[in-house]
């Protein structure tokens, strides 16, 4: 039971890192990245091949690059960095002149290319067999599974805290406000002299770095990784969890992933297998689909709505600047571009 709870918490913390990164991209900047899981996978692969030594199976059965035997903190950072660089390449391809929904499709295509190459080009990451026996971090090789889970949990929570701190700083900074302005209406944001492309590029990269870190923590914990782990559906489910939990609010995003990825898959374990073997998983996916549509339909801001709505109420209308004399309807009422004009005006250039 203790192990079960610890396992749940550890996977929850790792999923929360993913949620924070994806939420930066979707919730803050409105970039629909349907291949987010690819960056998690890249982080996992890089962390694995930089900590692994020579393949244990000889005769070319097991092949992968690097084999650096790095200490794990270095591998963790490297995983984040490589995922970030890949994110930069991807975002530079898609962001420039594509409308947001077409951008989403193209991210899926790019994810497919990466998946296809990793699966078929065996010398890179051992193809479809994937990597296994990734070294445990800390003193993981010598302790019991429960103790190891606890150790990974502590490290994951530290990484999560760092990511949350970055996300919160971005959320509160002028940069975060520019991102939200772009999300609501990029033409308005551009007309205030904000660089819509540049702003979104960097938030995308930061989100991908977090994905890489989460992937590295995941592979340190489960110690194996293969292409079956990052099919397009994984990204879709993660996206669904964010939307249900509340995009724009990182607590909502964390809650969403925890409930809809963790708890649902854990509950699955206790359900009897009825019908054909895949019935339970299918039922879960149908439930996620229905919830997703219901939330979008009846509670469009997610279970925990974006925080600045409350912020306004407690701190009153716009603090200072040219828009502070604007009539109150600018700061009350539903979320929309007109509110952000006031917002952007009050803050001026960042």
């Amino acid at each position, binding site marked *: 039971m203790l192990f079960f709870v610890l396992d749940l918490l550890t996977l929850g913390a790792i999923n929360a890192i993913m949620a924070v990164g994806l939420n930066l991209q979707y919730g803050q900047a*409105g970039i*629909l990245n349907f291949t987010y899981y690819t960056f998690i996978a890249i982080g996992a692969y890089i962390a694995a091949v930089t900590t692994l030594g020579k393949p244990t199976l000889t005769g070319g059965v097991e092949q992968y690059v690097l084999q650096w035997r790095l200490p794990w903190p270095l591998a963790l950072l490297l995983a984040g960095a490589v995922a970030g660089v890949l994110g930069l390449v991807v975002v530079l*391809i*898609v962001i*420039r*002149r*594509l*409308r*947001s*929904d*077409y951008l*989403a*499709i*193209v991210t*899926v*295509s*790019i994810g*497919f*290319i990466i998946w*296809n*190459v990793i*699966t*078929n080009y065996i010398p890179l990451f051992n193809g479809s067999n994937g990597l296994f026996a990734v070294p445990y971090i800390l003193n993981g090789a010598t302790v019991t599974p429960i103790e190891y889970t606890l150790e990974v949990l502590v490290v994951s929570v530290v990484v999560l805290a760092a990511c949350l701190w970055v996300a919160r700083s971005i959320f509160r900074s002028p940069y975060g406000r520019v991102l939200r302005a772009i999300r609501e209406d990029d033409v308005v944001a551009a007309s205030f002299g904000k660089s819509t492309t540049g702003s979104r590029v960097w938030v995308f990269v930061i989100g991908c770095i977090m994905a890489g870190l989460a992937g590295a923590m995941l592979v340190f914990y489960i110690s194996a990784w293969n292409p079956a782990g990052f099919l*397009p559906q994984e990204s*879709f489910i993660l*996206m*669904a969890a964010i*939307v249900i939990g509340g995009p724009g609010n990182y607590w909502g995003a964390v809650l969403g992933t925890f409930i809809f990825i963790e708890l649902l898959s854990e509950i699955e374990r206790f359900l009897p297998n009825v*019908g*054909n*073997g*895949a*019935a339970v*998983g*299918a*039922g879960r*996916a*149908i439930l*996620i*689909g*229905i*919830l*997703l*549509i219901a939330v*979008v*339909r009846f509670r*469009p801001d997610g279970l925990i709505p974006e925080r600045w709505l409350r912020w306004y109420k407690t701190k009153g209308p716009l603090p200072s600047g040219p828009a502070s004399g604007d009539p109150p309807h600018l700061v009350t009422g539903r979320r929309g571009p007109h509110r952000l004009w006031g917002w952007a005006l009050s803050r001026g250039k960042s």
Partner: protein
Amino acid sequence: MNLLAEAVGFGLVTAAVIALAAVGLSLQVSVTNFVNFAYGDFMTFGAYITYSANVAGLNFFPAVLVGAAGTGLLGVVSNWVIFRPLVKRKSRTLVLLICTVGLSFIVQNAMVLIWGTNSDRYTVSIGNALHIGPFLFTPGDLILIAVAFGLLALLHIFLQYTRFGTALRATSNNSDLAQACGIDTGRVITWTWAISGLFCAVAGVGLALETNTLRPALGFNELFVIFGAIILGGIGRVYGAMLGALIIGILTEVSGMFADPAYKGAIAFAVVVLVLLIRPQGLLPSRGRSA
């Protein structure tokens, strides 16, 4: 040379399937202005309905009609239940897109529940390969290509020469203006979902025949190839989608000759991405809207 011709022939068959699917999706996108991620699952749904109708004793071609009707109905119902209320509320495109992902979860996994994950097969097969000139086709391939040509020609006539086709084009061009001119855009959208479902079901049956498997994930895996075709042709451009499908279909098969066939999907996508870098609006750009 002979091999190249054969590859082009296979490409034509692939293109026929992709073209049917891409035109259906493109039609829907041009009118509703959002991309449907559940479209691949609609294809599978059409293929499964056809399968069940066939198993229940109907001949194959009437069964395809039943599948097409069923898929059209699925499209119309999805529109009524999910998308119309959201469009009325002026939800953002991204929100609608996410809803289609939810719909994809529901449809795909409902099929898992109903038909199971095992691979099924139609009782009819595409027959044995025949040499026709330099090409290598089976009778089924030829029928499929003929059906694709026939349906696309019908759609062309429908769009260009009927009142309803004109209304559809007007709605796709500017829905507010069309409404102001007295066109019942709600009805146009409903029928567009139905027509799109019809094309999609026929494409699904074709895909299941060509790959000789029928699994719940069949259409979902093909979805991104179809997206490639419609992106290549310029999103929402029906004729562009045909062109895009032809290019993707032939490219996929021909690239299999020069590189490891395992990469052929990736090569097709890489070309799409390259085209986007040079021409973000696609080969045949849409006029005015969307850029």
